[in-house]
């Protein structure tokens, strides 16, 4: 393979988001005529790396060499396209109000003038026919009317369609997440054909079987770095899982208190079957228990939390609930309010009389939780946005805990929070659980599961494994999250 020219070479590429170091010096090269499989657990930095390649993010450090020439600060989506690099993003980038052919035209400015619709239709039909024979999609279907999987097929076909610009490298980020097995196989076949013709593909997938079968070479990322990279035949399903986890951590995981694995008996606080669960497995939470939700991001954990939230007070969820948002900006923070107002918003009703709020009681409550949670704010009247991300997160914790809810739902709240804050919050969660509150804790970080009495692993919107604390290993969580394609079917 060494005789093939290098398409892109990254050396020492770094990128940080606030305090979080998403990429800590990545070296990677992609050669013509190879399919590179890229795997890694949540937050390993895969998506960030791909966004840098596609030109939607600029690297914070290191060099990016495309076709032998260093790409400077001007590297953009357009520049990437000019170099023949295309990316199928995880979130769809089609216009739902346009037809399939019109969406193809959006990407190809050269399709214009009289008869452009025929040209665009022929182009996208050709690509669809080649990749997904029997696809059943007309170029004149409106994208918004298509099912999710067909939309994804259009998106992929569009990325492989060629007009004036050359096409060298296609990045596929979880391309088969909503495709069925037959169609997914059609795609991997096409990837092999494309690679055979001298093109290159970077394939990101949580289906390890797919990765091993399709790729020539597999690269494993962890904590923003490339930790392993070998020809695909040198890996097995098990060795890939092992490479994604870290040995050192596993030992600490086993060392974590091995006792207390028997679940409490009696009436559970939550006994909910996720709506996409096919069997009758239930998400069970007992009073005083800390239950972890694990698995790859976007596999139904947040949906399960929201289901619990919506069903509060019903038969499946006994008791009041409070929600701790992970995505602070969209789900949590009220940006125009002070720290105190943000803390007390869920408790205001309890402290009010005849609909009138009690500022004195609210101030005392806010101050109390400032102390308990250790919010580092000069004045609780300061605007919430003047706090650091970690402290904003503590405010959201304080909000949920101050609300005196029986069940606290946590939607991966520790994303981008520094380690000191994390330790403080773990201690609070533990202390509150001992007082009889239940916690349902979705987390993308394996280490946090060690704080949980019981862990449910989610894949494809359903529970695929439940693990008592005594049996918790990173390997088992990874193995359940990354099932090989055959098992998933």
């Amino acid at each position: 393979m060494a005789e093939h020219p290098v398409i892109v070479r990254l050396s020492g590429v770094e990128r940080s988001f606030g305090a979080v170091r998403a990429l800590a010096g990545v070296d990677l090269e992609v050669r013509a005529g190879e399919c590179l499989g890229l795997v890694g657990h949540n937050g390993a930095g895969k998506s960030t790396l791909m966004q840098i390649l596609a030109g939607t993010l600029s690297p914070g450090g290191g060099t990016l060499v495309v076709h032998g020439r260093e790409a400077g600060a001007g590297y953009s989506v357009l520049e990437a396209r000019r170099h023949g690099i295309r990316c199928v993003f995880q979130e769809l980038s089609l216009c739902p109000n346009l037809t399939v052919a019109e969406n193809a035209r959006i990407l190809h400015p050269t399709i214009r003038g009289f008869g452009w619709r025929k040209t665009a239709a022929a182009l996208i039909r050709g690509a669809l026919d080649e990749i997904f024979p029997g696809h059943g999609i007309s170029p004149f279907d409106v994208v918004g009317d298509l099912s999710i999987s067909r939309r994804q097929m259009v998106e992929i076909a569009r990325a492989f369609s060629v007009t004036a610009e050359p096409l060298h490298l296609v990045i596929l980020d979880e391309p088969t997440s909503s495709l069925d097995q037959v169609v997914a196989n059609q795609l991997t076949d096409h990837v092999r054909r494309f690679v055979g013709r001298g093109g290159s593909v970077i394939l990101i997938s949580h289906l390890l079987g797919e990765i091993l079968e399709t790729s020539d070479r597999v690269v494993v990322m962890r904590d923003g770095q490339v930790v392993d990279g070998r020809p695909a035949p040198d890996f097995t399903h098990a060795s890939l899982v092992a490479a994604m986890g870290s040995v050192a951590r596993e030992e600490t995981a086993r060392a974590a208190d091995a006792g207390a694995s028997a679940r409490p008996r009696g009436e559970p606080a939550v006994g909910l079957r996720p709506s996409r669960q096919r069997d009758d497995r239930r998400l069970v939470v007992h009073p005083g228990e800390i239950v972890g939700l694990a698995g790859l991001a976007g596999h139904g954990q947040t949906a399960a939390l929201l289901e619990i939230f919506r069903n509060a007070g019903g038969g499946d969820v006994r008791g009041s609930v409070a929600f701790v948002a992970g995505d602070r900006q969209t789900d949590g923070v009220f940006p125009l309010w002070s720290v105190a107002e943000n803390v007390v918003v869920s408790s205001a009703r309890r402290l009010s009389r005849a609909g009138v709020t009690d500022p004195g009681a609210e101030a005392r409550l806010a101050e109390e939780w400032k102390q308990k949670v250790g919010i580092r704010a000069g004045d609780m009247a300061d605007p919430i946005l003047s706090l650091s991300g970690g402290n904003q997160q503590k405010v959201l914790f304080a909000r949920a805990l101050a609300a005196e809810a029986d069940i606290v739902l946590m939607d991966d709240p520790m994303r981008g929070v520094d380690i000191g804050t994390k330790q403080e919050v773990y201690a609070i969660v533990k202390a509150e659980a001992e007082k009889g509150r239940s916690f349902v804790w979705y987390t993308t970080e394996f280490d946090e599961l060690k704080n949980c009495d019981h862990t449910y692993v989610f894949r494809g919107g359903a529970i695929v494994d439940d693990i008592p604390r005594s049996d918790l290993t990173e390997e088992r969580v990874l193995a359940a999250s990354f099932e090989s394609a055959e098992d998933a079917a």
Partner: protein
Amino acid sequence: MTITRDRPEPSPMSSFAARLFSRPWIWSYLAAVAVWFATATFTGGKGSADVLTVALTFSSFFVIVGIGQMFVITSGPGNIDLSIPANIALSGALAMILMDGSNAMIPVGVAAAVGCGLLIGVFNYVLIRLLAIPPIIATLSASFIVQSIAIAYGRGLKIKPPPAFAEFTTGRISGVPILAILAVLLAVAMGFVLHRTLYGRAVTAIGQNQRAAGLAGISVDRTRVATYVLCAGLAGLCGSLLAGFSGGASLNMGEEYLLASIAVVVIGGSSVAGGSSNVPGIWGAALFMYLLVTMLNTFGVGAGIRLVATGLIIITVITLAGGKKTGRG
């Protein structure tokens, strides 16, 4: 005119002034005062007290509908009530018909006008929810129907308001218009509702982040329906008072209140993106709007220039305040 709420205070020395100037509403008062001074200077101070009295009266109407619109706009991007003019026309006509010139029927008439407004508010929200359409189109189509009813029942209406009601709406207590006192009290009350009640808190919360509000345990639907009903109820009240003030209801008496209601909210320093509002600014902006017209009149400027100036001021204010968030505001 930008919102400078989160600016740190410089030093204790100027802390009072700093706090004052960090209030978004202060600018509307400064502008109102500046315009008044300009008018007074031009006329050599003659009648400038009268100008102020008249301004207080007319501003009262702006304030009453403006507060309602402010609550609606505060409840988030895309929320707006376009049915205010039609609402005023219908409620005003209804009040006049019921009162029929008799002093005894004044309370009934006013209550009916407010009730009519409340019903329109409920209708608005039913359309928004059931048809799942943006508030702007829901309140627009509602206003078509309301306007028609107002035309059908109010055409050629020559009923004069009862003498006591006319006196009340045009009267003064030691020189200050009764209406202005009423509107100030209303503003104080609504300020209390906004800052000290669960409802007010809920409105500002959903206006900042509807999803987060729902997840924090706030009932989004209940808050929104209350807001549309409140706004429409105030418009109904304004309709009856306006009819009393102008010696009877007329079909187009609500016309200028659509833009006015939005303008006082924007100029008063509330955020069009929702979630941040202030009641004092409504008064400042209402006075400013009226005094500006008076000033231009005094300068002998025609109606055309006046309109152009009003429009340009609104655009300037909104451009300076800047757009935040996205979505149709």
